[in-house]
């Protein structure tokens, strides 16, 4: 305390008053944190109480197989994504070849489409009656049983579809690291006799490993959490198993325990990455940025680079989307409930985004303020983000059951379901907005607040006139991303939506599951089209984000 005047007693009064006001000021952040972590806590509680026959049955029949399937999915997609996206990122940052500028941003296009939409398209493209196999038969004259063709409805098939949809996370991580790596370090390696291969393998790649691992961890979390694509392709991962179990038995215990196994895998991934990193430093040792001078590639290597990047964009976006557009144009089917599904989607995404935005501002401020509360907020926000929607929705069910038990509500009415869904969305996606608010506030120097104070602004005015506008500026893109993520969300919406109140994502999934792909295309394409908006904003930001560029 800087004040030295006044009696000891009055100073004491003032300090307890301060504590109280601080306490009150902390209330919104504490409430927000509770909202964020309550579904997860409910799942853990349900799991603790969830023994018995149901669980014994799961252990005997499902647990081992679906755990192994999830591990297989994770391993295969990790390999597919890193082996393709990392070299692609290296090529577009370090070399000149035809189409490089286009590929640099087109490689993130797959982020626009949810994995389940890709799964619909690929299952249609590659099944026995699909255009690819038909073409094979037409060309060779073979019958349907005369040749072997890889089955897309299999574990490797699901890994392929998920990798095609999610590799941009790995690409973005690798790319940002390669762009930000000191050119001096690569120059130093050259002068020490390292050719291009050794520079990539021994210098750039190890330095980029944490960024690649972070990108891969994000993508693999999505792989582990995926329900739509995996179940559409008939693969029973943990995420699928827990929803099937819940739908089949309506018993939260075993499903909650399965989700704990899933969560252990997800958090295990993070721990493994930290463990592997060890003591080796990864921060740049050279801080001078020089414009990356991309070396031109000669004919064959350039062709190879174009082939790699082109194939990734083709498989991750163009091919599946072209197929869906083709079907949509060919059949011209507009499902009856398309309008109502669109309205429901927009309404739900709007409500969810509003909830996320409010929580994001509250927790974002707490995160920036730091201290214990800040750390706790950060934990609450990111733990929600790491937990699959299929797990959170179980928590929502548990909370609804508890509320019903104590007589707070009369079962799952439309309002209860909608509130439950908004809660799950908030718990899952607030992180996006909160991090954006935190980043925006971090960019504003503390002297802003000091300046406002010296101009006579009290705490309320400071928040309203200075800090809130700064936070909102950061929240704009965050809001857009949250809106799109909610629009794409499938498992939670599928389970918790009110009866007869389907969204675009649920409609598309149900049609596709019923082998009515033509009806699923329009909702799928609409979701993807909306998903393109943040992707385009991101790709613009990407092209402007090179160090040394202002």
């Amino acid at each position: 305390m800087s004040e030295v005047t006044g009696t000891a007693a009055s100073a004491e009064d003032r300090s307890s008053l301060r504590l109280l006001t601080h306490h009150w000021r902390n209330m919104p952040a504490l409430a927000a944190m509770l909202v964020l972590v309550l579904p997860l806590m409910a799942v853990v509680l349900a799991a603790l109480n969830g023994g018995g026959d149901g669980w014994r049955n799961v252990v005997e029949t499902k647990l081992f197989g679906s755990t192994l399937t999830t591990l297989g999915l994770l391993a295969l997609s990790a390999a597919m994504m890193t082996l393709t996206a990392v070299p692609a990122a290296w090529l577009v940052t370090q070399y000149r070849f035809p189409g490089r500028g286009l590929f640099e941003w087109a490689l993130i296009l797959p982020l626009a489409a949810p994995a389940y939409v890709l799964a619909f398209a690929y299952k249609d493209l590659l099944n026995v009656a699909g255009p690819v196999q038909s073409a094979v038969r037409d060309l060779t004259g073979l019958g349907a049983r005369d040749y072997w063709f890889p089955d897309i409805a299999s574990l490797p098939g699901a890994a392929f579809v998920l990798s095609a949809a999610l590799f941009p996370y790995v690409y973005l991580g690798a790319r940002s690291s390669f762009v930000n790596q000191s050119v001096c370090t690569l120059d130093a390696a050259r002068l020490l006799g390292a050719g291009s291969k050794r520079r990539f393998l021994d210098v750039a790649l190890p330095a980029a490993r944490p960024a690649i691992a972070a990108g891969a961890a994000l993508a693999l979390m999505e792989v582990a959490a995926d329900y739509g694509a995996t179940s559409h392709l008939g693969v029973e991962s943990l995420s699928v198993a827990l929803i099937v179990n819940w739908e089949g038995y309506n018993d939260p215990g075993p499903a909650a325990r399965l989700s704990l196994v899933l969560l252990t895998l997800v958090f295990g991934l993070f721990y493994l990455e930290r463990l592997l990193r060890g003591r080796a430093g990864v921060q740049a040792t050279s801080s001078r940025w020089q414009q990356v001078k991309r070396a031109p590639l000669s004919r064959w290597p350039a062709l190879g680079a174009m082939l790699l990047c082109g194939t990734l964009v083709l498989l991750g976006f163009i091919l599946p989307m072209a197929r869906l557009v083709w079907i949509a144009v060919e059949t011209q089917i507009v499902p009856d409930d398309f309008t109502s599904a669109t309205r429901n989607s927009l309404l739900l995404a709007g409500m969810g985004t509003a909830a996320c935005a409010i929580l994001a501002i509250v927790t974002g401020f707490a995160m920036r303020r730091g201290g214990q509360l800040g750390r706790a907020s950060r934990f609450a926000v990111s733990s929600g983000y790491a937990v699959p929607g299929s797990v959170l929705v179980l928590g929502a069910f548990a909370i609804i059951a508890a509320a019903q038990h104590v007589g707070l509500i009369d079962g799952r009415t439309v309002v209860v379901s909608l509130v439950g869904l908004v809660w799950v969305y908030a718990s899952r996606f607030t992180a996006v907005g909160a991090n954006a608010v935190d980043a925006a506030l971090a960019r504003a120097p503390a002297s802003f607040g000091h300046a406002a104070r010296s101009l006579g602004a009290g705490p309320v005015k400071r928040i309203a006139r200075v800090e809130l506008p700064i936070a909102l500026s950061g929240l704009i893109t965050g809001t857009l991303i949250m809106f799109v993520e909610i629009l794409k969300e499938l498992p939670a919406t599928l389970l918790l939506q009110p009866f007869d109140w389907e969204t675009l994502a649920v409609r598309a999934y149900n049609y596709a599951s019923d082998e009515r792909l033509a009806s699923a295309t329009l909702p799928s394409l609409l979701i993807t089209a909306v998903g393109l908006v943040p992707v385009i904003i991101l790709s613009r930001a990407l092209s402007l984000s090179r160090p040394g560029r202002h």
Partner: protein
Amino acid sequence: MVTELNDIRLEAVGRRYGGHAIVDAVDLTLHPGELTAILGASGAGKSTLLRLIAGLEPVSSGAIRHGGTLWSDTRHTVPAEHRRVGLVFQDFALFPHLSAARNVAFGLAHLDRSEARKLSLSWLDRLGLSARAEAYPHELSGGEQQRVAIARALAPSPVALLMDEPFSGLDPERRDGVRETTLGLIAETGVPALLVTHQPEEALRHADKVAVMSGGKLLQCAAPHDAYLRPSDPVVAAALGPVSLLGMFPVSDGRVDTPLGPLAVPPSIQDGRVTMGLREGALSVDAGGTIEARIVGAALPGAVFRVPVSVGDLGLEAVLQDEEAALVAGATIALRLNPRRLLWFQS
């Protein structure tokens, strides 16, 4: 690896970016056993010149040769990884994921692993870092990082050593020690060495030759003493130390009238106009002097006292060995001119 030490010759080397010359027709030879320092303002083209020699950029005109081997011309560039040139960066550029020993061993890929490690440890030992061999860059102090960077550059027996402001990132206390060690090792290995620096004292004290660049051009390359006292250009004079420039004065019959009185110009100056430069110490306070001046401010103490004076309308600085005279602002004093500290530039 036995390294044959040869000259590195730059012949009218130029580098242009989008029509703008960053390096313009530079002729320069780096001899084995010689340290050449390059001075110049930011953007003078020093670092680009160094990158051209290293092979990190192609030349737009001219040629670079190492002994009888052509390294760069407009059609041909030996890649940097094949030149065996050591480069030390201002910010060290150590590989963050490798220990000190493995950083040094990076350039020893032609040796087997144990030999490379042995050599790397012996270099670290020479630089007083044997205890830090297993430390990672972020665990090392700035001075230690730079010593590792120097060991890394010298370990593969380079044919030349290029240093881009290698000491400017260090604390002043560490700078002298690291510089001493580095320059000692360079002298020992006998490689031609090039040092880009912003500090004229560093260049004048340690280099065998001092080169000054401005606007991409190499203005002068000479022994430090010559460059300091006989700069070819006012820019060179200013780059190497404080100088007061007065001009332009008409010359007739080898003489010129200046505010400091009539003076004889060196025989190399022809009739026309000249600019006169006064190096530090050109004017000294001396009761027997012939130039009348007035003290205009407080003297700055130091090895010598530096007294701000005016001669007529001209503001200058004079030196005084001991503070025996009454140096009161406004007092009139006599100054003596030391002609050996005068610089003359033909306009």
